[in-house]
C-alpha cells in the first residue's frame, strides 16, 4: 500500500519530466510546427505582403516547374556548388585534422590559426574576400602573379564567380577540421603501434585504422555540409548578390528574393518546401547508404557480445546434453 504522500510523489514524478521539456515543446509549436504547417498552406496561395491572399491550388508549384527558368538555373548552380564544395571541404578538413594531430611542437598555435576564420564567418568573410578578389586593386591576383599565374576577373567573370565563393567559404573549414581532430585524437595509440609492428606504413595505417574508425564522424560531416551547401545564402548575398549574369544566383537567394524583394510569399513558400523535400531526400539517401560504410563501435561490441553469448549457450547446452547422456 502506498501512503497518500507517496502517491502524490509518484504523480508529481510522472509530470516532472514534461515540466523540464516544456520550454522546448512550447517553442516547437510556436516557432517550428506552426510556421511549418502555415508555410505549406501558404504555398497553395497567391500571397502578397500587402493585400488579400488568394487560393490558387498547386499553381505555385506548376509555375516553379514549368514557367520559371530562374528556378532551374538556381537549382543547377546550387548543386554545382555543393558538388565542388562538399568533397573539397571534407577532404581539406581531414587533411588539416591529420596535420594538426602530428606530434610536433607548436601545434596548438597552428590549430588556433586554422580555426580562427570559422569564428568570424558571415559578413566579415564576404567583405574581406570581396576586397581581396577585387579586379582592379585585389591583392589575390597580385599574389598569384608571383607564382606566374594570371588571375581571372573573379567576381565579375560568370565562370569564376562561383569558384570565388568556394574559395571564400572554404575559409571556414575549421569547424569541420576540429570535429575530425577530436575524433582522430580519441583513437588509441596502441592500435597504430600494433599496426606498425605488423609492418603497416603511415598510408596503410590511415586507410585501415583511421578512416574506418572515424566513419560516423564522416557521416555527420557529410550530412551537415550538404545541408549547409544547399542553403548557402549570406556569402552570395554580400559577395556577388547573385551576379554576374545570375551565375551565382543560389537557390537560397532565389527564395529570399521571391519573398522579400518580389513579395510573393506564397511562391517563395512553395520554393522553400521544394528545398525541404530535397534536403530530406538527400539526408535519407546518405543515411541509407551509411550502413554500407559507417561502422559504429557499439555495434561491433554488440556483435562480439552476441557471439560470446551464443557460444556460452551452446556450451551450456552441450554440458546439459553430456549430463543427460
Amino acid at each position, binding site marked *: 500500500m502506498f501512503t497518500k504522500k507517496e502517491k502524490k510523489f509518484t504523480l508529481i514524478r510522472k509530470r516532472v519530466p514534461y515540466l523540464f521539456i516544456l520550454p522546448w515543446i512550447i517553442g*516547437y509549436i510556436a516557432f517550428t510546427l506552426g510556421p511549418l504547417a502555415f508555410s505549406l498552406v501558404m504555398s497553395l496561395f497567391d500571397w502578397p505582403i500587402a493585400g488579400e491572399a488568394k487560393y490558387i491550388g498547386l499553381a505555385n508549384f506548376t509555375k516553379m516547374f514549368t514557367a520559371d527558368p530562374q528556378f532551374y538555373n538556381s537549382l543547377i548552380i546550387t548543386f554545382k556548388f555543393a558538388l565542388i564544395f562538399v568533397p573539397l571541404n571534407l577532404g581539406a578538413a581531414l587533411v588539416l585534422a591529420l596535420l594538426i594531430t602530428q606530434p610536433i611542437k607548436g601545434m596548438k598555435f597552428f590549430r588556433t590559426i586554422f580555426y580562427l576564420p570559422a569564428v568570424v564567418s558571415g559578413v566579415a568573410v564576404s567583405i574581406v574576400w570581396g576586397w581581396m578578389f577585387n579586379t582592379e586593386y585585389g591583392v589575390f591576383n597580385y599574389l598569384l602573379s608571383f607564382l606566374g599565374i594570371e588571375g581571372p576577373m573573379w567576381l565579375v567573370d560568370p565562370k569564376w564567380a562561383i569558384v570565388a565563393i568556394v574559395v571564400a567559404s572554404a575559409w571556414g573549414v575549421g569547424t569541420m577540421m576540429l570535429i575530425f581532430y577530436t575524433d582522430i585524437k580519441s583513437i588509441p595509440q596502441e592500435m597504430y603501434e600494433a599496426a606498425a609492428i605488423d609492418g603497416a606504413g603511415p598510408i596503410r595505417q590511415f586507410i585501415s585504422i583511421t578512416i574506418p574508425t572515424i566513419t560516423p564522424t564522416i557521416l555527420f560531416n557529410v550530412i551537415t555540409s550538404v545541408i549547409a551547401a544547399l542553403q548557402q545564402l549570406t556569402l552570395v548575398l554580400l559577395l556577388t548578390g547573385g551576379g554576374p549574369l545570375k551565375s551565382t544566383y543560389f537557390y537560397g537567394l532565389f527564395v529570399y528574393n521571391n519573398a522579400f524583394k518580389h513579395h510573393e510569399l506564397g511562391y517563395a513558400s512553395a520554393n522553400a518546401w521544394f528545398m525541404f523535400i530535397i534536403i530530406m531526400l538527400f539526408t535519407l539517401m546518405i543515411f541509407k547508404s551509411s550502413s554500407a560504410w559507417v561502422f559504429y563501435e557499439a555495434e561491433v561490441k554488440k556483435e562480439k557480445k552476441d557471439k560470446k553469448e551464443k557460444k556460452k549457450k551452446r556450451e551450456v547446452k552441450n554440458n546439459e546434453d553430456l549430463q543427460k547422456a
Partner: protein
Amino acid sequence: MKISKRHKILVYSVLVIFSLYFIFPFLWALITAIKSEPEVFSYPPKFIPDELLFSNFVDAWNSQPFGTYFKNSVIVTVLTTIGQLISCSLVAYGFARYDFKYKNFLFVLLLSTMMIPWDVTMIPLYMQFNMLGWINTLKPLIVPAFFGSAYYIFLLRQFLMNIPKDLENAARIDGANEFQIFYKIFLPIMKAPLTLVAVLNIILVWNDYLGPLIYLQDKAKYTMTLGLASFQGVHELQIIPIMAITLVMVIPPVLVFVFAQKYIVEGISGSIK
C-alpha cells in the same frame, strides 16, 4: 611516436602554407585599414603603408552610429545566450534523466528540427512577428532563444547521459525535490558543456546577418553586422572604414574563442559519439 627530421620539415612547410591562407585575409584587412586613401587604390598593392593611420579606426567608428549598433549586438548576444543556457539545460536534463511516455518520439522530433531549412519557416515567422508588432524590434532575435535549440539540447543531453543514476537517487533519499536536484547538483556538473553552448551561441549570434537583415529596418535598431554591410553599395567602395569595422567586429568572437578553446575541443568530442 617518433618521426624523422625530413617528415618534420615537410609537415612544417605544409602547415605554414595553409596558415597563410587562413591568416592572410586578417592581415590584409589590417594593412588596408591603416592605409591612406591613395595607397589603398594603388596597384600593385603596398604591403607596408608609408604612414600607419590608426586614426582610421576612430573615423570609421564615428562615420555611423556604431556605438548603438555595438550596444544592440551585445544586448542580443547576451540575452540569447542566457535564454539558451536556461532552456537548453532544463530540456536536456528532462530528456537525459527521466523516462516518460513519448520520450523517444519527442526526441526524434527535436533532432529532426535540425534538418528543416531555414527558408521554410522564415516567411511564416516573419508574418507571425509582424502580427505581434515585433518587426523592427530586437524581440524576434531574442525571444526564440528562451525555448531552446535542438543542437545545444542534443549536445547537453549526450553529456548528461554519461552520469550515473545513483547521483539523483541519493539526493532524493535526502529529501531534495526534483528541481533542487537539477539546480543544486546537475547544474554545477554541467559547467563545461554549458560553457561550450555559451561560446557557440555567442559566435553564432554575434555573426548573424540574415536574422537582423529581415527583422530590423530602423538604423537605431541595427546590429554590428548590418552596420558593416550597409557600408557596401551606399557609396563607392569605402574600403578603409569597412576593413576597420570588420576588424573591430572580429575581436569579440576571437577573444571568446581564445578563452574557451579547451571547452570547444572537449565539448565536440563529447557530443558526436
